[in-house]
């Protein structure tokens, strides 16, 4: 992405994550059962965002797949 983003665009997703986390933090204070579950969902969002970012970024070593392929070839020959 080469285009400069506005502050609003930069903070759009972080604001939603913060709001959902705060909702989760308060939900379990107000009761048990469903409200506890709401808090789990709310506070799972930050962890889910990291998992999504890692998934999107692909393998951490770009050549690992290639290396695996070469190794396989090596054992075959």
């Amino acid at each position, binding site marked *: *992405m*080469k*285009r*400069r*983003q506005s*502050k609003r665009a*930069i*903070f*759009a*997703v*972080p604001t939603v*994550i*913060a*709001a959902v*986390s*705060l909702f989760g*933090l308060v*939900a*379990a*204070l*107000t*009761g*048990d059962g469903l*409200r*506890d579950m709401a*808090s*789990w969902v709310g*506070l*799972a*969002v*930050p*962890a889910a*965002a*990291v998992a*999504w*970012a*890692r998934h*999107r*970024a692909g393998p*951490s*070593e*770009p050549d690992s797949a290639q290396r695996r392929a070469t190794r396989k070839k090596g054992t075959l020959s």
Partner: protein
Amino acid sequence: MNTRSIRAWYLVHKWTSLVCTLFLLMLCVTGLPLIFHDEIDALTGEQVKMAGLPSSGEGPGLLPLDTMLAKALTARPGEVPVFMAFDNESPVLTVTTAPRPDSPASDMTIQLFNRATGTPAGKVDEQGVMPFLLQLHTDMFLGLPGMLFLGAMGLLFVAAIVSGVVLYAPFMRKLRFGTLRRTRSTRLKWLDYHNLLGIVALAWMTVVGLTGVINALATPIIQLWQMNELAEMTRAYQGRSALPPARYGSLDTAMASARKAIPGNNPQFIAFPGGAFSSKHHYAVFFQGTTPLTERALTPALIDAETGQLTDVRPMPWYTLALTYSQPLHFGDYGGLPLKMLWAALTLFTIVVLGSGLYLWLGRHRAPLETRVLEVETGGLAVPAE
């Protein structure tokens, strides 16, 4: 944002973080097992789960409070009662005694009883690993100065979070949310992780940081309440000398007067005369609220410890309520095991944010300030030379 203001915020972020990072790492590492202290205590402790009437109740099936107190004092001859605490789920009742009414917490002894049978119900482990971690986490074995010091570190942590959010804007100007460049260089990888984990855990870190600061102020907050509201509630007793323990009257009479003043609520604990939570002449019976949200908002009924008559009832002020609600919001123990596991995950995120921040600083702290500011401005593309 121009380069000059980025530079200023960079310096704020650098210095607030540098001062608090090692203490925050200690707090995260000790806090991690403390999240699960109930589960760990259940695995290792002698405390047995018991079924039966809740000890905060009243009526047949539960022994009188005077009987329970007498049992506790027989086990600790020469000591005076400091607290008696109740449970809403089981008949377990705890009695705290100490050599003097105003003894420090380290001199207090906690005994557990079954209020249905009157038998002892296990001990509170005060020597094991968990109490050690708790003490390290609370005051680093330095008492009140240690607590206040860690509170100050918490404030710096919050300042580091705020300045970090400000720097997030220029850094991400040309990057999509969630960018992780893991293949170009180790530095860029950790720079991206630092920004991503910091921004997703922002709300949680701020809440746990601020509630930690409020918890660190527990002693002055309670002292303020004693000086203001409690002093007003017990104005008629001002100037009288402390009531000697030999003249303490019946706890059951006192509890009956207190229940009449706040009908329908469960008592959470009784503070005895001379301690931090009462006057020198009163049993302070602290009642819980009646809904899940207000359950933690306590209302004390001040009962003349000699006569058992009500002196005054008044809800706690806003600043002690802030302390009360800061406890669950800091400990994460109010929404079952899944919430605790998320709490642990977010603590791990915080450890990575702290560790990567330290790594990023150590790697290039000799580079000129301008080039480090340029790194923030370009989203990590202009890498400062060593």
